[in-house]
């Protein structure tokens, strides 16, 4: 190898070294942005998120006085782009105002469930022995109820309402995160850097939160995003069964349930648009979750 070639190679290496360091998260972010479906999912999720945050502020809405009995069940027109419902309320406005219920409960239930579930899973996986057995047995019992049925039972117990459906949905999803956190911890626990930390005398809580937790974050993040979609679906289902948000406050599932009886009179718009809202939000978070999974763990990609 000539001296020039060596010098070239050295300068190339230096150039690589001079680049800003690429962290795992930044790499994942780049992969996420390069995925078309994930971008679509992100756009949809962001759209509804912004709707949920800003619409109630910009257009204050008082559900209790909103009715226009002259314009009951009018077809979509220029004045009411998505028509009006059985009380003459503008369907588009109610969908926009209802985003707060779905997204708010969806996000907060996932956040709470992730925190509690991860904590349970981390402790179970890290402590092992009887703590693990007891905690995971409890989680298995919760999982042996079908999710929505357990949520219905909890809502029946504490009474219908949005806050109570938040409680129900959160409780139901805790075991999912606990199981994921536990299984990741079990594999991370055997990694060499954990042994190394133990060798230098790091106390267990420190190992748990400094080494194990950050490395088990990505599957939980993916599941959490997919979980938002599930939670939104469950809120709508509870609302549809009359157990979620109570009238007159707008919520997509409840809007569907209130309007099903008008199908015989051919009023499709009171059902189609809230249905689309539910479908799109669920789709958006599902796409985003799938994209995150591909971005965070490229090995899992099937193609």
């Amino acid at each position, binding site marked *: 190898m000539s001296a020039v070639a060596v010098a070239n190679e050295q300068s190339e290496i230096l150039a690589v070294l001079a680049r800003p360091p690429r962290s795992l998260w930044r790499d994942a972010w780049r992969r996420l942005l390069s995925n078309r479906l994930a971008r679509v999912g992100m756009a949809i999720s962001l759209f509804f998120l912004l709707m949920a945050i800003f619409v109630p502020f910009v257009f204050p809405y008082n559900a209790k006085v909103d009715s226009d009995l002259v314009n009951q069940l009018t077809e979509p027109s220029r004045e009411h782009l998505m028509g009006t419902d059985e009380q003459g309320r503008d369907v588009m406005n109610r969908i926009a105002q209802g985003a707060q219920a779905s997204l708010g409960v969806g996000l907060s239930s996932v956040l709470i469930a992730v925190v509690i579930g991860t904590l349970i899973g981390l402790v179970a996986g890290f402590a092992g022995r009887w703590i693990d057995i007891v905690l995971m047995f409890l989680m298995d019992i919760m999982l*042996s109820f079908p999710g929505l*049925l357990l949520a219905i039972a909890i809502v029946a117990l504490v009474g219908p309402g949005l806050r109570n459906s938040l409680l129900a949905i959160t409780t139901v999803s805790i075991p999912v995160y606990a199981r994921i956190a536990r299984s990741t911890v079990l594999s991370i626990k055997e990694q060499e850097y954990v042994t190394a930390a133990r060798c230098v005398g790091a106390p267990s809580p420190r190992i748990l939160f400094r080494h194990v937790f950050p490395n088990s974050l990505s599957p939980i993040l993916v599941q959490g995003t997919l979980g938002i979609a599930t939670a939104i679906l469950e809120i709508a289902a509870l609302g*549809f*069964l009359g157990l979620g948000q109570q009238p007159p406050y707008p919520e997509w599932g409840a809007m569907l349930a209130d309007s099903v009886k008008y199908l015989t009179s051919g009023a*499709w718009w009171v059902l189609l648009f809230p*249905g689309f809202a539910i479908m799109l939000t669920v789709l958006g978070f599902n796409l985003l979750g799938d994209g995150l999974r591909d971005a965070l763990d490229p090995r899992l990609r099937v*193609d």
Partner: protein
Amino acid sequence: MSTYLIRRILYVIPVLFIVAVVTFVIMHATPGGPWDAEASKRTSDPLFLEKLNQRYGLDKPLFLNTYAFAQAKTNGANPAELAQALLDGQFPNYLWNLLHGDMGPSLRMKGRDVNEVMFFSSTDRPFWTSRFGTTALIGLLALGIALLVGLPLGILAALRHNTIFDYGSLFFATIGYGIPNFVLGVFFIIIFAVWLEWVPVITPAIWMEDSNMPNLSAAFLPSLTLAIPTAAYLARLTRASVLEVMGRDFIRTARSKGLSERIVVIRHMLRNALIPVATVIGPALAGLVTGSFIIENLFGINGIGRLFVESISRRDYSMIMGTTLFYALLIALANVMVDVVYGFLDPRIRMK
């Protein structure tokens, strides 16, 4: 294998027991009771209520009857009688009757047993016209549709990887998996009943008065609605599985032996690729049957799911227990089936 199977099946028993305990506790902790759920028929006569409670054993303690126990003790009863007195609570009595196949009388449907309401039709007609039969029919039809749609889509997508077929089926799978079934049901009703007017808006009864055969045209739309998310899931799973098998060495070996493409695909590729798919069929069916309660409510079908939702709001205690245990049994058995089918189809997996 057989000891493994027996152990897996025995594991169902504690799971069901705990589900029963949890349901029982939640149910009794819920405000209200079977006698006051309907305001119009509310009775306030305490004597009457007391008689009702006595008749259905609701005046006894929930779990352990310490009162009867103490009484028996002062009367100097023998240990067997003592145990009997102690276990004379609502829950132990329920379990005892359940072990004899008796789920007790319904508290809200006058003069009818839970068994009868769930598994037998009202008149002297075959049992498959019962609520259970209705739910099972919808579930099985949905499973059939899901398999007929999901498998070919998944296989096609994998064999024509990165073509329009692939993207099309992926699109279907993504949309179909995310869409809640009550929304899909509403869309179907709007499209097929309101716009196209192919079917009536109000779904007719699945079991006609004069026939013991199901009215399949009435069952079709609910089954299709129920099937779509499962079809999407199966398509995704099949696609991934076929893609994975396609790259294996034994496929290359089969091709280099000069086997025809058809035989390579059917005998070598699909046989292996469908193993993971076969294992999810059990849980898929359980999911379809337990997930049908929203569909049953939407289409007004008299199945177990509707019974479940109704019995919760009417506080029909024995009916709640019956339907919940039925669901839990289905799910538990489906999970057992996964393990068993897996071991059966893939001899490489050793049963411990």
